[in-house]
């Protein structure tokens, strides 16, 4: 039998621990003394960068982190200032955000929704992050956006291309600078018509998750509108590796175009294998067989090697654009890291500046003030020409870059060449367009 003893010090310790424990569940509303979650009280403000540091998109995540680091450096007055010099707003002066030094924490999404939510939650709860950004997958972006809405912090999405992010899953606290599947299709369709005519039969291989579904729906609708037929739509598991058993049926399907709604490693493998199966050398319906990859990236082009030559696709941005903002960013990034930035890096850098600018213009870190400052905001000088953050769905509207794989690249940084820059008007759609229906922003949540 044991005899319990109580001391005054023990009771005080236990009481303090119990009090802290009871207070813990109210973490999202712990700043009730302040008006919103994680209101900065000291001389610094913390941003949370949630990117894939492991998993199939780790290289893109690494490039995103480089861009975030560069953006923070520029916000705090370091380096050459990058796009701060070309940004139309000029509200940012290199003294941090509202005079507070910008600090950041990072999390690993692992390209998995549950891991991404857990790391974002940790950054909000433990590190006091007031804004979350990053991501290389729409599944992750949708999940983290939902979490940020519940927690009362702003989510500035990184690379996410599904229509759903600013469609059925849009949230008041979430903002997307990156373009989407509809915009890719709208920009790409006229180019495809010029290249391959109006009498084509397309066979879709599609990654079986939110991004793939909306990409397939968008590109099929756009190509059917110009007269193409859709021979087949086949869903492939994410990370299938060997796509040969999905590619072989294309040979006898009557199709003369293969649309690869794949991204990252899946795109590298499916494209490489489609070329190995001789699709690009064969004829179908009396025409040369063609392959289309609606969403491109320089990093993917590097993975696909020679298979990418001549393949058309679309990008949110490309480092070879000639505007002043792009040149300033490429110079800053290139001198710091020794190679040009990817489009994933660009969108993350821009989102960080846009958040800082919105806070500065609002004069307040309150998420609802930031939302108000960003809604309907028009800006320029960040690499995409004049851009609008539309109030109704928090989607940026700007030019889209149509590209194709270079036939004779001069080096590993010139694997993609720009075909045309599609103007904003051509890729703009109504906020209640059927492909984006079923969602609503809801109310801004400050978390208090």
């Amino acid at each position, binding site marked *: 039998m044991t005899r319990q003893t109580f001391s005054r010090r023990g009771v005080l310790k236990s009481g303090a621990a119990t009090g802290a424990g009871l207070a813990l569940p109210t973490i999202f509303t712990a700043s009730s003394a302040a008006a919103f979650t994680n209101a900065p009280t000291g001389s610094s403000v913390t941003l949370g960068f949630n990117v894939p540091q492991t998993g199939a998109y780790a290289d893109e995540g690494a490039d995103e982190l480089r861009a975030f680091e560069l953006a923070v450096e520029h916000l705090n007055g370091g380096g050459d200032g990058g796009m701060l010099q070309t940004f139309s707003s000029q509200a940012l002066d290199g003294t941090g955000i509202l005079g507070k030094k910008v600090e950041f924490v990072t999390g690993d999404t692992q390209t998995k929704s549950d891991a991404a939510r857990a790391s974002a939650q940790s950054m909000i709860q433990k590190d006091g992050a007031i804004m979350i950004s990053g991501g290389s997958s729409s599944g992750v972006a949708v999940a983290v956006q939902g979490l940020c809405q519940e927690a009362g912090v702003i989510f500035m999405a990184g690379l996410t291309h599904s229509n759903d992010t600013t469609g059925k899953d849009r949230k008041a606290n979430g903002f997307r600078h990156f373009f989407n599947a509809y915009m890719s299709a709208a920009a790409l369709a006229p180019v495809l018509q010029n290249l391959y005519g109006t009498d084509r039969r397309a066979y879709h291989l599609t990654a079986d998750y939110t991004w793939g579904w909306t990409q397939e729906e968008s590109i099929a609708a756009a190509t059917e509108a110009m007269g193409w037929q859709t021979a087949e739509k086949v869903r492939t598991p994410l990370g299938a590796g*060997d796509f040969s058993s999905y590619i*072989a049926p294309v040979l006898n399907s009557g199709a003369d175009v293969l649309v690869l709604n794949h991204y990252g490693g899946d795109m590298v493998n499916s494209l490489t294998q489609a070329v190995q199966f*001789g699709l690009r050398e064969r004829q179908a319906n009396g025409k040369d067989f063609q392959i289309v990859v609606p969403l491109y990236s320089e990093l*993917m082009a590097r*993975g696909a*090697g*020679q298979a990418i030559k001549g393949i058309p696709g679309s990008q949110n941005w490309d480092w070879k654009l000639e505007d002043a903002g792009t040149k300033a960013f*490429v110079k800053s990034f290139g001198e710091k890291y020794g190679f040009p930035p990817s489009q994933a890096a660009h969108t993350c850098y821009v989102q960080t500046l846009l958040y800082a600018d919105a806070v500065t213009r609002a004069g307040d870190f309150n998420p609802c003030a930031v939302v108000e400052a960003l809604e309907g905001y028009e800006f320029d000088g960040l690499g995409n020409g004049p851009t609008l953050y539309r109030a109704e769905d928090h989607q940026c509207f700007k030019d889209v870059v149509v590209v194709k794989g270079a036939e004779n690249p001069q080096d590993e940084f010139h694997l993609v060449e720009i075909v045309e820059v599609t103007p904003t008007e051509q890729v703009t759609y109504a906020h209640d367009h059927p492909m984006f229906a079923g969602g609503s922003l809801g109310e801004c949540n400050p978390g208090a």
Partner: protein
Amino acid sequence: MDAILIQILNGLDKGSAYALIALGLTLIFGTLGVVNFAHGALFMIGAFCAVTLQKLLTLSVTTIDPERTDFLGNPLKVQTPYVENWFGPEVGGTIVDWAVPLAILLAIPVMLLVGFVMERGLIKHFYKRPHADQILVTFGLAIVLQEIVKYFYGANPIPTPAPDAFRGSLDIGVWLGFDPYAIIYPYWRLVYFFFAGVIIAAVFAFLQFTTFGMVVRAGMADRETVGLLGIDIDRRFTLMFGLAAVVAGLAGVMYTPILSPNYHMGMDFLVLSFVVVVVGGMGSLPGAVLAGFLLGILQSFASMNEVKSLLPGIDQIIIYLVAIVILLTRPRGLMGRRGVMEE
């Protein structure tokens, strides 16, 4: 008919990879009694031997071309591979082009060494431990190995093309009386299928027709008795671990033009290869090979649109469904031996 033939061909090359990995797994299990979850990582390391050789062969001397500029507007640094400087552009270019087949020469000693270090340094300490411990430690080792590879090579797939002579595809359909382009099959996949056949035949011949192989087979059947005869069976089993590592490594080297290597590729093949081993019968080498090809072909058939329209999602579960059916009807697998993994 042509669609069925295409899927059989597809299944053959996928089945070749499964069979080669499962063969190594079975060798290790049959000799050492170890369930080696790091075997997929050996396949991946083999693939990265090809990547490494490709990188070594393209190591370049840098010269400045003042006429051209880089992306920052500075004078362009032109990279010329050393092998092209040493042997001339034509011979040097051919050597670089043949990096994947040449990587076999690199992979054999590397994989032997990796297998030896892995077995002597870690796995031998787990011989007498439960299978669960072996699975945990080898699975952990696999994760460590793939993270090391990711640290040095990144996470994205790295293109490692086949030599120019094997690019393109063969119109098999014309030979069989079908229309042109009805049955197309890439040259390299045919090479892989024949390569797998040669490796499998060599392993069987080695076990069947050499004294060393005879002792190993005897050890697999009755380890204690062979030991009582004064034969150092442990040393031979260590060499068999090395041999299994070489088989997995060579399978990985030659697979790189089919699937651009990434650090995770071993894990993708590992689970399926274990199912192959179980379906073939634990400890049965012919069973592993048979089940490898069988499941590869079945997986290909399950990916046909006609099959998927009848049974959506069947392509994802077919291998596991077959495993369940086989284990229910033949608990020891297709060619399993009595007493293996049985109390």
